[in-house]
């Protein structure tokens, strides 16, 4: 019984099949060979880019770069886009609720370039303080970086409203869509943001592949961040000139097999439909929020206005690690710890939580089993 989908989802059969078919019968290095196998691999690779752009509501495949995952995508924006334009007196705005991947890169830049890092606080329910967010955005703000859905509380941030606040002041916006790409309509165009990041492995796809989509407005500002073959126009002893985004990020041989797998994952998602997925997750979330309070001593963490798929909780006098160990013996996989959101937990006065997170293959019967298991643990512990 797998309830750790915010960490990674299970792989779709069609993804495994697409990858293994490529690995077994179509494998060749791309963009380099003057032979059929290489040309076909290149075609598949670039077709995947087009399909992913379409998935993101864009007809421009050149807005889509392949990365190792959300963390890599965010770090690329930090180093490739933001660092060169920072000056003393500037500020970067993000929130206290972010995953470390969307916090530490900005903290590092702030320290290195002597700029201010402004952290939007949350209220007692686990919703962002939007008035404070609005106040933070000013003419010195060089980026607003925000997640779509909190990986710890499941809070769905009101991105429309938030992005509108930034756009009024012409501030570029990065959206960490790691927890939403699977079941929300996303993309730099649909969201009206400038940078969109997500990972394949949280949406039934392979490990080690992610996306950085950049709005056409900022494509020309994306500079190479590491150097090597595949990204150059011309190399001379004196100097090197580079290809344009997204091809200026692909130094070295890309993870072609995983790109094929990611395209298959998006096809799998489209086949089910994001709306149907959201509906299922909403139903499960509401059911879990209704059933979990039956467990004596349980505290559900946060009560945001909108949440989906992710619920953190604690049991009185039982550390989340001990909860996870005991539930593991009932074949229930859940996560325990800080969930890479230490600033959030500190702000809420928490040291750790247990977290369940759902996907399309979970059901209400599993939530019933979870409740039974937690009740048994409470009885044993007391």
């Amino acid at each position, binding site marked *: 019984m797998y309830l750790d989908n915010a960490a990674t989802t299970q792989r779709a059969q069609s993804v495994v099949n697409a990858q293994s078919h490529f690995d077994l019968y179509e494998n060749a290095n791309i963009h380099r060979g003057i032979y059929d196998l290489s040309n076909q691999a290149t075609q598949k690779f670039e077709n995947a880019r087009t399909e992913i752009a379409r998935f993101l509501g864009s007809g421009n495949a050149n807005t889509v770069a392949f990365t190792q995952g959300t963390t890599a995508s965010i770090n690329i924006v930090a180093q490739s886009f933001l660092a060169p334009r920072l000056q003393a007196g500037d500020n970067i705005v993000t929130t206290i609720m972010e995953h470390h991947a969307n916090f530490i890169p900005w903290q590092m830049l702030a320290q290195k370039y002597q700029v201010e890092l402004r952290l939007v606080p949350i209220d007692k329910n686990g919703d962002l303080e939007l008035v404070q967010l609005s106040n933070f955005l000013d003419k010195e703000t060089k980026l607003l970086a925000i997640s779509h859905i909190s990986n710890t509380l499941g809070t769905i941030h009101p991105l429309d409203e938030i992005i509108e606040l930034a756009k009024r002041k012409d501030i570029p916006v990065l959206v960490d869509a790691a927890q939403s790409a699977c079941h929300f309509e996303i993309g730099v165009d649909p969201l009206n943001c400038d940078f969109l990041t997500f990972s394949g492995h949280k949406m039934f796809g392979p490990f080690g592949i992610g996306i950085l989509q950049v709005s056409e407005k900022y494509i020309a500002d994306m500079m190479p961040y590491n150097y090597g073959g595949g990204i150059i126009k011309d190399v001379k002893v004196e100097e090197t000139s580079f290809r344009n985004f997204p091809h200026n990020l692909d130094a070295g041989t890309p993870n072609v097999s995983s790109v094929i797998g990611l395209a298959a994952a998006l096809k799998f998602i489209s086949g089910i439909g994001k709306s149907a997925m959201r509906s299922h997750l909403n139903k499960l979330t509401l059911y879990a929020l209704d059933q979990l309070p039956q467990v004596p001593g349980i505290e559900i963490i946060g009560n945001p206005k909108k949440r989906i798929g992710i619920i953190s909780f604690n049991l009185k006098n039982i*550390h*989340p690690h*001990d909860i996870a*160990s005991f539930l593991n*013996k009932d074949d229930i996989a859940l996560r325990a*710890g800080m969930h890479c959101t230490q600033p959030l*937990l500190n702000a809420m006065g928490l*040291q*750790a939580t247990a977290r369940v997170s759902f996907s399309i293959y979970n059901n209400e019967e599993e939530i019933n089993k979870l409740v039974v298991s937690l009740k048994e643990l409470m009885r044993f512990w007391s």
Partner: protein
Amino acid sequence: MTKQELQQLFKNEILPENDNPYHFQELQRASFTVEAYNSMCGDKYTLYFNTNEGQITSVYFYGFGCALSKASISIMCKSMEHLSPNNITSLSDQFIFAMDQEHSTENADKKIQMLQQLKHFDGRVDCIKLGWEAVKNHFENVDL
């Protein structure tokens, strides 16, 4: 480890130590302190060492963590009292070594032996080693 074995382990060994930890108390003064922190899970303890003429006279600890880390540090604190810093280094070295080795290692202290037998506890070895590693790292970085 089966569920029944896990329940027995916690009922007989871990929870008694967790519920009545040895010297679980915040001290305002100590000869020196050591921080034991696991940033992956948030377990965080301060260890308080009192010394007299080079000997460790008492060890206290306080903080937040799981039953395993708390029980393990409780056992550790008791075992380290009245030892010299050299002997503490040796004891923590042996414990970490025993936890990292495939073959079993005997220890005369039955409670330490119990902890060492948990070296294959799925995903929880870091909890058991937390305090011991903090002490080991501390004494490796001071002049004895």
